[in-house]
């Protein structure tokens, strides 16, 4: 593991026990997040993206269980530690969730209280994580809302979530996530429910934040075009497994795995194609047999047997 890796997941598996049986929602996943970069997890619904993120913050609840793996975190100027080894209810785990890592979601309304003003909620987040007075918290909240592009912040702090548009609510969530100065921001489909023009604004904000405050982003999405715009590194997931990793240009311009190739071909493009090329919809793991990831040329990995990897990629 190189020095500039802030988070390194090794062999993570998460199992859900249901009436139908045991189901490996995340199956032996490994992932490296480079410091101050954006790592995207892309995959179709049910592929295990959110469960991977929840595991990073130790938020998996019954009937789910982390059955194996390591999540090695190396915060700036600190020793590495394994997130999965932290004791429940420990200070370290509390610090991880409230300080080191923060998360924003697709639907901010579910994370905001409908009966408290925006200002109260942002101030509450500040007061639980910093020892400041109420007046200072008000100023900080104002500055933070202003920072994420909410005009007239001191006025708007008096308003309730329902008075905010979807895009504005997502900005509030970003502000609340940033108050504790996290080093890792997990964004789980943060623009999926937004109009395309608002999505563009939120993506621009996240990019600008990443560049100015040196935060490392884990960006989860099903949308390959969003990946193209936000990611530095990309991991393609399918049915709980990682099928391919590489830089954003490698994955989008030169995918190796047939699943990634098909996923890209299924996107209706700007050019009028005659026919889309859908990926097989059979939820049949034998479509993409469970080979393990192997390293190939260009610092990338692909889950295929060597014989199926074109020669030019062989190390």
């Amino acid at each position, binding site marked *: 593991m190189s020095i500039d890796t802030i988070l390194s997941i090794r062999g993570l598996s998460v199992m859900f026990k249901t009436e139908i049986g045991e189901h490996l929602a995340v199956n032996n996943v490994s992932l490296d997040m480079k410091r101050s970069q954006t790592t995207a997890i892309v995959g*179709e*619904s049910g592929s295990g993206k959110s469960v991977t993120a929840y595991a990073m913050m130790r938020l998996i609840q019954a009937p789910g269980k982390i059955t194996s793996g390591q999540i090695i975190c190396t915060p700036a100027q600190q020793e590495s530690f394994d997130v999965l080894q932290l004791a429940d209810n420990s200070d370290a785990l509390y610090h991880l969730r409230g300080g080191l890592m923060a998360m924003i979601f697709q639907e901010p309304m579910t994370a905001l209280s409908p009966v408290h003003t925006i200002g109260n909620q942002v101030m509450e987040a500040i007061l639980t994580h910093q020892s400041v007075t109420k007046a200072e918290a008000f100023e900080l909240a104002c500055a933070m809302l202003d920072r994420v592009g909410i005009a007239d912040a001191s006025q708007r702090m008096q308003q309730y979530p329902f008075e905010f548009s979807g895009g504005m609510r997502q900005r509030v969530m970003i502000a609340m996530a940033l108050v504790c100065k996290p080093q890792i921001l997990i964004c789980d489909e943060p623009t999926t429910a937004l*109009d*395309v*023009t608002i*999505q*563009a*604004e939120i*993506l*621009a904000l996240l990019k600008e934040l990443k560049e100015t405050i040196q935060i490392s982003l884990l960006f989860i999405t*099903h*949308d*390959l*075009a*969003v990946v*193209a*715009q936000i*990611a530095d590194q990309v991991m393609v997931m399918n049915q709980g497994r990682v099928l391919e990793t590489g830089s*954003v*240009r490698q994955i*989008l*311009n030169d995918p190796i795995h047939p699943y990634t190739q*098909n*996923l*890209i071909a*299924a*996107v*209706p*493009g*700007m050019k*009028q*194609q005659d*026919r*889309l*090329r*859908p*990926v*097989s*919809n059979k*939820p049949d793991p034998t479509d993409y047999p469970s080979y393990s990831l192997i390293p190939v040329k260009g610092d990338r990995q692909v889950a295929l047997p060597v014989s199926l990897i074109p020669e030019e990629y062989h190390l």
Partner: protein
Amino acid sequence: MTDNILEVNNFSVKFPLMKRGLLSRQVGEFTAVNNVSFSVQRGSSLGIVGESGSGKTTLVRAILRAIDPASGSAVFQSHTGAVDLCQLSNKALIPLRMQMQMIFQDPFASLNPRMKVADIVSEPLVIHRPEQHREHRQMVIHMLERVGLEADTLHRFPHAFSGGQRQRIGIARALILNPSLVICDEAVSALDVSVQAQVLNLLVDLQQEMNLTYIFVAHDLNVVHHFCEQALVMYHGSVVESGPVEQIFTSPRHDYTRLLLSAIPSLDPDIKLSPLDRNSLSLE
């Protein structure tokens, strides 16, 4: 010669603005669709795009008279000749409903969850073609086949199916009466991209086989670009631009269309997203 299956003129839809309180009362009107005119050529696909709340759903629901328009006309070429849907009584609309069908994002949201696939797909037949009841079962099986579902799905409940299969069931229900005009309201929006591609391909095949005309409402501009020949761009209840899809995408004339197009992320990481600044545009 133009063969328009639908001609909509000066079409507006208004909702009452109510004041909340012990006795709620109307304090004004909200114009959700504002003086819209367009036509749809038989056998073609017309896309309607615009941000959420722009009036797309209200427009198509009012054309089908699920809600009543405030003014305007919607002339439909039925099997028996031209009729203005806005002028018909609810009773006179019934036979026409067979010829115009709608496909929704969640096809079963409004249906009884205890209905099996067979009931869901045959219900329109039971209502509109009771005299053919002997043939219903065969018609349903045939329709399911056409949308790519096996006959053994007949006796299962829709919640047991994946999103793509559920949408196929919704399509089968919409097409079982052999309509000529099919309105798809965000019909593929909730589907994964691979499943979306299959459903779009299916809709194209069915259009050719059954000579369908589509009105295709979607907030995803790429889907409309792929699927439709003509499009309307709606903004705050008005159509701000209309024309051939290719023209709208390559040389948009209205500032709102330009804003929308500039916000579409490219699949190419080297084509950076640079959305236009809302404040520098004249949007109304």
